[in-house]
């Protein structure tokens, strides 16, 4: 018995990709195994931990809850793309300054989630930041440093208001 496959064409971090994928393969496994984009991580494999967070057509999704086959014609962005474009350079710098990552396994997903929150505009309260991150699991930091870093970037992006 051979697993059924599909042909897909999509753009990943701005690069066109066309591939034959197993119909059952999820997006994060496709990114990691077929495209060797290993910055997105697999944590729980059922949509709880957020380590596999990637951007699909402009909005973040769980890479483990989307099938690669569903991404035909889509625009996918990962931590590699957001890093190379400089879009989240200030967030990354703030995470590094504040030691808002320890083992770093959750960090790519955490950064994509944070960027989506900040793209909504304004300076969210600490409680709002915590709520927005509530689908991203970090075992190391206890979250406070992550909230601090995101809060600092939100303030800096809004004219440095304290």
């Amino acid at each position, binding site marked *: 018995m051979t697993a059924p496959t599909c042909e897909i064409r999509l753009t990943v971090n701005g690069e066109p990709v066309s591939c034959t994928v197993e119909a059952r393969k999820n997006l994060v496994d496709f990114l990691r195994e077929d495209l060797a984009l290993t910055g997105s991580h697999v944590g*729980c494999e059922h949509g709880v931990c957020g380590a596999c967070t990637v951007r699909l057509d402009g909005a973040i999704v769980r890479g483990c809850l989307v099938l690669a086959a569903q991404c035909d014609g889509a625009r996918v962005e990962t931590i590699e793309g957001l890093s190379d474009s400089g879009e989240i350079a200030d967030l990354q710098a703030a995470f590094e300054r504040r030691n808002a990552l320890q*083992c770093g396994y959750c960090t790519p997903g955490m950064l994509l989630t944070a960027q989506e929150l900040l793209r909504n505009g304004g300076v969210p309260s600490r409680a709002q930041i915590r709520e927005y991150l509530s689908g991203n699991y970090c075992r190391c930091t206890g979250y406070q440093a992550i909230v601090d870093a995101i809060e600092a970037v939100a303030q800096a992006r809004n004219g440095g208001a304290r």
Partner: protein
Amino acid sequence: MRIAEDTPPTLTALDRPNSYIGRSVPRPNLARLSQGRAQFVSDVTLPRMAHVAFVRSPYAHAEIKRIDVDKAKTAPGVIAVVTGPELAKVMTPWVGVLTHLKGIKSAPQYPLAVGRARWQGEAVVAVVARTRALAEDACELVEVEYAELEPVTDAETALDPKTPVIHPELGDNLTFERVHTAGDPDKGFRDADEIVETTFVFGRHTGVCNEPRTIVADWNPSEQRLTAYHATQAPHMMQNLFAKHLGLQEHQVRVVTKDVGGSFGIKVHTYADEMATVALSKLLNRPIKFVADRIESFVTDIHARDHRVKARIGVKRDGTITAWEIDDLTGIGPYSVYPRTSGIEANQIVNLTGGPYTCPNYKARARVVFQNKNVMCQYRAVGHPIATAVTEGLVELAAAKIGMDPLQIRRRNLIPDDAHPSQGPSGIKFEALSHHASLAKLEAMMDYAALRAEQERLRQQGIYRGIGFASFIEVTNPSAAFYGVGGARISSQDGATVRLDATGAIFCHTGVSEQGQGAEAVIAQCVATSFGVPIERVRVIMGDTDNTPYGGGTWASRAAGIGGEAAWQAGKALRQNVLAVAGSILQAKPETLDIRNGVVVDAANGAERLTLEELARIAYFRPDTLPAGVQAELVATRHYVPRAWAFAFTNGIQASYLEVDVESGFVKLLKHWCVEDCGTIINPQLVDEQIRGGIVQGIGAALLEHCVYDERGQLLNGNMADYLVPMAMEMPDIEVGHVVTPTADSELGAKGAGEAGTAGAPGAVMNAINDALRPLGAKPLTDMPFTPDKILRALGKL
């Protein structure tokens, strides 16, 4: 305030000789982690690599009657299907005992179950295929016929004569027992005005590392060498174990850790499925990769705690504690975990209970029993959360009984700061602690009086808030007393090799490893400071047994205190070597020279004499210009192990402030404070973040995390939707303060800080909940995790 703290202080060479000690230097490995450019073992792929998936026992206890692999063997992409008896020919079994835990016993454990499966999730058959998905497909085709046996699940009845014995050859289900009496506990209880007695329960929970356990084993028959890319905390320990059980010499094995996605004690043990992966690589002569999925992680990553402690305390009406007694029972699954054993946690509980206090009258018993559940072993803060919650729970219940403020009873009984060296009731030795200074600092930080007033005011409005404390001690910087004396080949010493390269930069190879704590930064800080270069010029190499000095790795809060000291001494030694060369080039006495900010200078006035680049150029490329007989030695190695004290005990105190919704039973954490004393602080930011992360891990144990088993030994909540972990929304902001009492056992004076948060948080949260509910007459809650239903039951609402 937070944003100001966001930027580490400016670094200046003027602060020498301590330029980087005490500074929040950013970690060199952060950018690759934040840009998705890290390499975790789960990212590793090798030529000819195949993947293994395991058929695991669906039963907690069963005889394996028959295994039929025929269909699986012919499934697409399958390379091999291997059973327990077949793999036992490749790898010898192991037994998790240590000689210093007198009487501890366990049975041989094999990479795959042989004859009997003894917990739900134990690997029974290995399927190796081209991809993980194909291996899992073929697992479905393996037929295993089991005869289910009566499972032993309740630790309370594990020793009953009627209960089946899990390993008949051992005679009973008792793994280990320790009894300890000190002082005169009977007299202590007779002298007490009040005796408080209760039973504390600590539910099983587990590590839930964000990156599951993972290994890529690569046996190369052409070199007769095994390279294991292994997400482990202890590379040299694993090198020894892989070699020993494959019948190889240690030099035939290389362990490389890569980046490690969280560990917390989970990744410092021997796992049957990882050993099986290594054995399969040897058997099949190709690289084999195993990445545990989340369900496998829940049923095979070591579980933690699972203790029932009957405890009592005697107290006089003036607050003097007169006696302690504990009776601990813990269930550890069917095997004592190799090589550290599953007896250490119970042993620690006996060692640590009552530890912060002067009362010497102490009676303790700890029993460790086998059961048919997943194995239990050392997890972050081993034993401390239990000993601390029991001790501090008793202290606050006693205070409530005699109507004394919980800080007052501690002031009356904590070992005075000027009474050291001292010892705890179990005989553990303390070099120097600061309980009272820590308590005073905490009281000021939290504005205790104002908080009590607020609590009282809100109670009038029907809002129930609680304040709870936990004083604690923490074992750090372990000497050979921890494992080495018991016969385990787990190094307590660590080495560092530093090398001046040809352009004046420094390479430091260290035996400690990195799983996110920041050891890489700390080692760089130590070397940069003691040698005298800007930290940007220090490159740290770790996590590779071919390329680092022999060492223990990173666990038991040892990396900074032990690995840091070795690096500090190695930097100093290299400085002497380099100044000897500089003296010869400059025709100056070496003792009149110094290295500052990467330049050889006159020690007296700091005037620049020679750059390191120039010195290295001469030493490496024009040694012919050096005087006859002068040989530059530009590599230095030093080792360090604590000798004066078996452990560098740290201490501190935590406080939790929370609100209990008495209608729903939900607990809202409002704030948490910790003052701790880890001696010299090498990197304040990293210490604070270890404390914060540790506290949240302890909060998880107190409120959320629980591996729930049914009476058949089936784990009912082995996934992240049903097993709750701390998430950002429920966690409080945490304030951290410090008292600094360096250890005199090392020049740096640094003790460990990795586990203090986890040690104290559960007890503080428990005490805060009970403080909140006391005016309502609730029965004290002592059964972790404190879920809403338990709180409503205590209030008589369920």
